[in-house]
């Protein structure tokens, strides 16, 4: 048995190794800046590091843009823990986002019933009350994501098709399908996006705007941060509990570690693969909902496009060492880097620098997982 102290040591070890990896990534980023333009390098580097923390409003914005990638990161993490690789978060995210916007837009007005059910006497559904509409949006997004995630799950479980290839396919199918559906339903022609959400279809801020704001003239400029980040944190904790404290999570993990042993122990492996992929899809779908319901007036493009959040989620998951709680921090960190990185253009650098830094960090992360498990094994053995 691992004692409390051992567990704490392992925790410190992960934190330390992650910090080393981050410093290494940032150093390489700085070197790239130096090679490109040594005079502006310091200013640009300092901007990346400090911008996200300059005012409470910026901190709020970091949390706001961290919300969707924490959720896609959790989706990838959950899959990874159960022995699957969910590269399909992009499609699940997009479906969730679309359904949330659809409910938010359509539910805010009278829905005229088609003629063929006029015999029921039902002519129109009145607008759904805002709190219920928001909940429906999120639930609908989760369902849509789960259904889209079920496809790779079913194919993996019953037809032995690798989930990576089916996820790649479903991502592209989602991309074209959603674009087509938007063009035929809630399209706003001029910007060629979905219609923007009515204000009361957005997530409430619950007073967070009083914390995350900066003085501007006589008043304040507030961040759009909302309860989305709290939902993301709550889901992370939920995922942690499911994976580490429930029989269900234990079964899922057992299938991931050794599917033959799991089968021998009487665990229905096929069913668990499908369940696991559906949960991943639901989490990514909620990410899509929270991404678009954030009150910034963000709408979804009607052109076919893969959601970048799905792929950033993979990075977030591995930077968080595929630990649900770690993912919260890595999501915030990645969002903080991106926000600062978007501000280095005035110095003549492009924001891709941040992606270079993150990719280097992820590359080193590949070793960290290894070093950590090996040292962990050492501690484990010595005390036994």
């Amino acid at each position, binding site marked *: 048995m691992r004692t409390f102290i051992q567990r704490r040591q392992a925790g410190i070890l992960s934190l330390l190794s992650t910090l080393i990896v981050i410093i290494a990534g940032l150093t390489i980023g700085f070197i*790239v800046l130096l090679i*490109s333009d040594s005079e502006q390098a310091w200013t640009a580097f300092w901007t990346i590091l400090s911008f996200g923390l300059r005012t409470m409003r910026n901190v709020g914005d970091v949390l706001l843009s961290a919300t969707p990638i924490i959720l896609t990161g959790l989706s990838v993490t959950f899959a990874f823990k159960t022995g699957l*690789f969910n590269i399909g978060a992009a499609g699940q995210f997009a479906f969730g986002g679309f359904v949330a916007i659809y409910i938010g837009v359509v539910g805010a007005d009278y829905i005229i019933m088609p003629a063929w059910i006029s015999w029921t006497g039902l002519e129109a559904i009145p607008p759904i009350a805002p709190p219920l509409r928001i909940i429906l949006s999120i639930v609908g997004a989760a369902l849509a994501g789960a259904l889209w995630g079920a*496809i790779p799950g079913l*194919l993996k479980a019953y*037809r*032995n*098709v*690798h989930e*990576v*290839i*089916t996820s*790649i*396919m*479903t991502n*592209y*199918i989602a991309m*074209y*399908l959603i*674009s*087509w559906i938007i063009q035929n339903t809630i399209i706003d022609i001029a910007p060629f996006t979905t219609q923007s959400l009515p204000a009361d279809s957005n997530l409430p801020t619950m007073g967070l705007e009083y914390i995350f704001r900066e003085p501007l003239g006589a008043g304040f400029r507030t961040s759009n941060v909302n309860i989305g980040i709290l939902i993301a944190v709550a889901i992370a904790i939920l995922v942690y509990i499911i994976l580490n404290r429930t029989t269900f999570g234990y079964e899922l993990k057992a299938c991931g570690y050794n599917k033959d042993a799991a089968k021998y122990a009487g665990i229905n492996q096929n069913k668990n693969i499908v369940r696991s992929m559906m949960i991943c899809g639901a989490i990514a779908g909620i990410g899509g909902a929270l991404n678009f319901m954030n009150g910034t007036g963000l709408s979804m493009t009607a052109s*076919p496009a*893969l959601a970048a959040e799905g*792929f950033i989620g*993979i*990075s977030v998951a*591995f930077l968080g060492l595929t630990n649900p709680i770690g993912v919260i921090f890595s999501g915030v960190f990645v969002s903080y880097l991106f926000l600062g990185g978007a501000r280095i253009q005035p110095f003549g*650098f*492009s924001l*891709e*620098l941040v*992606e*270079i830094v*993150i*990719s*280097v960090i*992820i*590359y080193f*992360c*590949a*070793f960290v*997982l*290894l070093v950590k498990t090996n040292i962990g094994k050492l501690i484990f053995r010595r005390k036994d």
Partner: protein
Amino acid sequence: MSMFYFIAQSTMFFMIPLLIVALGGMFSERSGVVNIALEGKMVMGAFAGVMFLNIFQTPYTSHGILLVALLVAMVTGMMLAILHAFASINLKANQVISGIAINMFAPAFAIYVAMFYLDAQHIPFLNQFRIDSVPILGSIPFLGPLLFQNTYITTFLGYLIFGASAFVLYKTKFGLRLRSCGEHPQAADSVGISVAKMRYAGVLISGALAGMGGMIWAIPIGRFGGDVQGYGFLALAVLIFGAWRPKRILFAALFFAILQTIAVSFSAIPFLFNLGIPGAFYSMMPYVATLILLIFTSKNTQAPRAVGQPYDKGGR
């Protein structure tokens, strides 16, 4: 009939890069290393090759410089492959993670450098490589327009690489050793084959082919815009769909490329256009069809047994 030839000719522009990159992935995965980084290597190859053309091309250059650009692309792909090989073979790290890192690094680096030197995301070059009709062969009835008109020298290079890959994998000592490292590395090691060397060879070949494939993908387009539109991932799908075998990879690439051509040019084909099906469904078709075919074919196909597992000398 001209429509038929047009489709056949356009299909090649999609098929050849997919084929070459998927064959590259095959060498890596048959040696036991998962190669999700094909996309990144393609991007980097296309970037380096196009950058080379952008700098050294003149209106008077011809196919010679294209071959040099392909070489540049191959070397660049191999450089990225070394990073992947080092992480997954020497350090026994998670092969998927280092692949993801490379996929993220390549487009970011390409755009960063392009923005820095050209102040634009797109790197243009002169497309002076199109062959209107191959001498003699192009004038053969039927086969001429089908295979030897409106083409690129890279198309024939693609056939060559296909033949060579199949030969190397199945008819040489090297191929046998490579495959054994992907199936049962401990057994290979016990008869004196260096698993690390074989896997390095597999990953490096995949880097070279993926880099070259990226460059070939970029040629008909005439510029490089920072990505290869997910073709690396499609090549991965073709590889799995092709069951890690050269001949089936060829058919998978051809199948996918035909559907892709239809998706892109359906509005120019009167028969398909008159059906009135929305364009989105033609765009989806290659992916849906692949999914459906996988459902029927995949139950019996097996990935190389040791793929994705770092080699552990003490393992069983």
